[in-house]
């Protein structure tokens, strides 16, 4: 149990998708104007992350890795398909996003209305693809670790975008030098938030 919590804490604070790896910056900067919409996007990211990363993990373990195809017969034990991983991951993500969109639309129209516009955007959110790539690179041992990582990284991203949105709602009333207005100051705020998050470095349960 403890190692799962450890992975979650690490993914949220010390290895935050935004502040440590700059992933998903495009939608992070574009959608963080109000707290309400950014909360919607944040929840959608957590959701999609928790669906796609475990599926890609299973694909990696059962299809792509060298020797993973042994279940098809011993003649397949030499096959190494890892060079296809980018293509497989992005196809899974695009397909899953489409599927999730259809399911949510069918069973929960109110959730669909609040997430609706964000779901298609998520297919090209780099935080999602990076979740799968990090999962491959860090070699998590079992599905429990993968699930905790995917929850932690999605939650960390949501936390970051909601924090930034709250600050941006406030900063509208302050007097910023004209060339820094809008985008420029947002970058600098994110930098300062990143410095604040650096203080979590080295935390271990």
């Amino acid at each position, binding site marked *: 149990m403890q190692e799962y919590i450890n992975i979650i804490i690490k993914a949220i604070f010390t290895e935050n998708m935004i*502040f*440590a*790896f*700059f*992933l*998903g*910056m*495009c939608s992070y*900067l*574009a959608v963080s104007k109000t707290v309400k919409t950014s909360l919607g996007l944040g929840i959608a990211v957590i959701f999609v992350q928790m669906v796609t990363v475990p599926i890609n993990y299973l694909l990696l373990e059962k299809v792509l890795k060298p020797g993973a195809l042994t279940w098809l017969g011993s003649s397949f034990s030499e096959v190494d398909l890892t*060079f*296809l*991983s*980018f*293509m497989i*991951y*992005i*196809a899974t993500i*695009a397909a899953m996003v489409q599927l999730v969109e259809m399911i949510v639309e069918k069973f929960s129209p109110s959730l669909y209305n609040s997430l609706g516009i964000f779901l*298609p955007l998520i*297919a*090209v*959110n*780099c935080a*999602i*693809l*990076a979740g799968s*790539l*990090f999962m491959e*690179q860090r070699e998590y041992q079992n599905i429990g670790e993968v699930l905790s990582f995917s929850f932690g990284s999605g939650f960390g991203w949501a936390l970051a975008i909601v924090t930034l949105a709250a600050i941006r709602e406030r900063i509208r009333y302050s007097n910023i*030098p*004209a*060339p*820094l*207005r*809008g*985008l*420029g*100051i*947002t*970058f*600098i705020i*994110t*930098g*300062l*938030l*990143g*410095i604040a998050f*650096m203080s979590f470095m080295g935390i271990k349960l």
Partner: protein
Amino acid sequence: MSSKNLKLFTTPFNLQNPVTVQVLGICSALAVTVKLKPAIVMGLSVTIVTAFSNLIISYMRDYIPPRIRIIVQLVVVAALVILVDQILRAFVYDVSKQLSVYVGLIITNCIIMGRLEAYAMGNKPWPSFVDGLGNGAGYAMILIIIGFTRELLGSGSLLGHHVVPNAFFQAGYMNNGMMIMPPMALIVVGLIIWIQRSKNPELIESK
């Protein structure tokens, strides 16, 4: 190159810069710029992928059913990125290790998808190729500026060679360790935007 194509190539450097004006492709721009060399390699890779995916999609634009265009585009881009990844691994393995997941993330780089949607789907192959080349180069330029600043101030070197003379260090000069940390990349981009917008007042956002 005709003047129209030349304009396509040069506007992404300043007034339509993908990073500082259109806010696309930020993720990788920040993450690979601790040192100058990975920044240059990344800039080149993105330029190549943008230009060739624009070219291919522009040739295919009349045959792609609009409903599934995103998946078609992603598959073309993913195939090109796999090529780039394999080439990097074969010839510059150490840089490929440093870039880690960010090579794969070229697939979801918003510049590429943005140019495919906004330009290649509606224009002839050759102008699309030039447009992709220009946008990739505009992105590479920002990467190189950030990489240059961070490596010079953070490690006192450029492309791995020491350039800050030892006399400076003896006189009490120190490398700025903060520059190597991720948050400084964001602040450097913020400063670049500040400089660019004070030179081009038409880019300033209204309140």
